[in-house]
């Protein structure tokens, strides 16, 4: 009986062991990580994925994509337009190149997106403007996120009077009329900043980024403060303190990662808002100098030719719109993906 049992058991047992091994190795090879889970959830958000693709495309286009287009445009201009005098002109030269043989032409094979009233190539100008607009959005967002995170972390961690004072300041900033104040500060202070920076473009860039970022950190500060308030009394913080971890390390290495999800979402949406604010400033004539073709500026200039050359205003306007729309979809997707409560 026992012999028969053993004889029957052995192959079955061996089979089970290999199965178990296969199962465990399978698990060991593919551990599920936090980021992996988030990515799995994110991929299901089709609009967010579309947003990522558009944003990656735009970023590549304004950075790497301008190089092949430059040589294409120079070649086309040499055969059927006013040739560019320089040998290897960069984008900054090309956006100011006047093609008097092609004034206000519709999109064609020489000028893929048409030209403006001075024969300047709209695609070249849009590529250059894209660099400015995207950079303004990113840097302004970085400023507001860093400010908001530090203020929120300090307020939530130390509490007491510091918290009271910082939160009063936050409330005060929330009651400031943002749009009029941004208009005012940029208009009034751009000349000294331009002088200090040496070039109009760099000067306006600095002031726009600082003012826009400096008036957008309040939401982040509140999110970070709330996380710190709820977590600073938890056991893992106590344990870290017992091990002799410094205050700064506890704040930024142990507590802050718990607020990373909402911060990332706020950062994403912040880029979109900064791009809209910058383009609005340019549109009202308060932003970048007239010879810097940001997307907002291109819309303003193009709006004068709305009936004869509508693409001049519509193309850069659509670029702003598509970028911000993609960013907002991305933010929405990240919100769902980074929320640990949401299920797969």
């Amino acid at each position, binding site marked *: 009986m026992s012999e028969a049992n053993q004889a029957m058991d052995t192959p079955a047992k061996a089979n089970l062991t290999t199965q178990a091994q296969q199962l465990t190795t399978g698990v060991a090879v593919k551990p599920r990580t936090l980021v992996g889970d988030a990515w799995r959830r994110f991929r299901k958000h089709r609009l967010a994925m579309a947003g990522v693709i558009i944003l990656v495309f735009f970023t590549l286009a304004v950075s790497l994509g301008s190089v092949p287009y430059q040589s294409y445009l120079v070649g086309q201009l040499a055969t059927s337009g006013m040739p560019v005098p320089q040998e290897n002109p960069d984008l900054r030269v090309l956006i100011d190149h006047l093609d008097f043989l092609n004034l206000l032409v519709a999109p064609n094979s020489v000028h893929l997106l048409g030209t403006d009233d001075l024969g300047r190539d709209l695609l070249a100008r849009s590529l250059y403007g894209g660099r400015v607009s995207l950079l303004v959005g990113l840097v302004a967002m970085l400023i507001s996120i860093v400010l908001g995170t530090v203020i929120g972390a300090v307020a939530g961690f130390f509490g007491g009077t510091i918290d009271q004072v910082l939160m009063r300041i936050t409330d005060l900033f929330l009651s400031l009329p943002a749009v009029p104040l941004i*208009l005012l500060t940029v208009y009034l202070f751009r000349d*000294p900043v331009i002088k200090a920076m040496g070039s109009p473009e760099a000067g306006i860039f600095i002031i726009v980024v600082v003012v826009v970022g400096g008036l957008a950190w309040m939401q982040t500060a509140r999110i970070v403060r709330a996380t710190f308030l709820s977590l600073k009394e938890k056991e893992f913080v106590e344990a870290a303190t017992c091990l002799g971890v410094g205050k700064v390390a506890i704040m930024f290495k142990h507590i802050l990662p718990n607020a990373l999800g909402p911060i990332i979402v706020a950062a994403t949406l912040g880029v979109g808002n900064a791009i809209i604010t910058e383009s609005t400033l340019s549109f009202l004539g308060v932003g970048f100098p007239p010879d810097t073709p940001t997307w907002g500026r291109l819309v303003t200039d193009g709006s004068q030719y*709305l009936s004869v050359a509508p693409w001049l205003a519509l193309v850069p*306007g659509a670029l*702003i719109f598509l970028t*911000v729309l993609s960013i907002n979809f991305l933010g929405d997707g990240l919100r769902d993906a980074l929320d640990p409560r949401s299920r797969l």
Partner: protein
Amino acid sequence: MTQYILRRVLIAIPTILVISFVIFAILALAPGDPLAQFALNPAIPESTRERIRASLGLDQPWPVRYVKWVSSVSRGDWGISFNTKAPVLDLVWQRLPQTLQVVGLAYLIAILLAIPIGIISAVKQYSFFDQIGTIFSFIGFSVPSFFTGLVLILLFAVNLKWFPIVYKTVDGSGWAGFGEQIRQMFLPVTVLVVQQTAALTRFMRSSMLDNLSLDYVRTARAKGLKDQTVVLRHVLSNSLIPVVTLVALGIPTIFAGAIVTENLFRVNGLGALLITSIQNSDTPVVMALTFIFAILTVIFNLIADIMYGLLDPRVRFS
């Protein structure tokens, strides 16, 4: 409750003072000179310029000027425009009706659209209607208002010629004047409606969704109430609480949003006045307008807080 309101008002007063101080300091410390236009004029010698400067009170240090400004504003005197020599308050009263008409009408339409769309989107979550609504509201708050404006101008004013491009102050009396007024308000109002409806719809929808999953809704359904009653009586009234506060909070921002619309359509309202005054270094007008925007923000924050307390019995005032 009275005590709570009193305390909030007492906090609001120093807030307004600090904000006015910040704006005043920005204007005073800025390098521009309001008399710069006279410096190039050979007919006005240096001594006259100094006299003008003294008559405008610009020869004193700015903290002194700030104290004087506060005391005169508290007496109802907002100063005199450098540019038009008219009292600032008169200018504001002249421009206010146009802004209020456009902004007020737009906000009203936005609210009337957003509430039903939000309700339907939430009740039929993930339905075709909800998905279309979601996409439209994302479009609404991703599109810069000057771009919506340009597209509408191109479509309805340039191509179809249904509406005028430029807003004129018309004689609003009689039916013809009324019709003309409606026609020219259509485009600027639509731009603001697109922007505002988007945000309000999303908020209404998520507020409804928060409430729809709560226990009291199940209880109401279990009692055998009609679906319509549950949604419109029980869920809607609770969902409207945060929406009402958002509506109050949004009023100052829509005034700021009108700056772009007014410049695009040449509506001679407060936003257009702000831009021209900034460009002309007309400090008293800029100060007054920015300060009015700030007061609006503080007051509507206050109203939102108080309304939240009145509408939501769970809020305790301790």
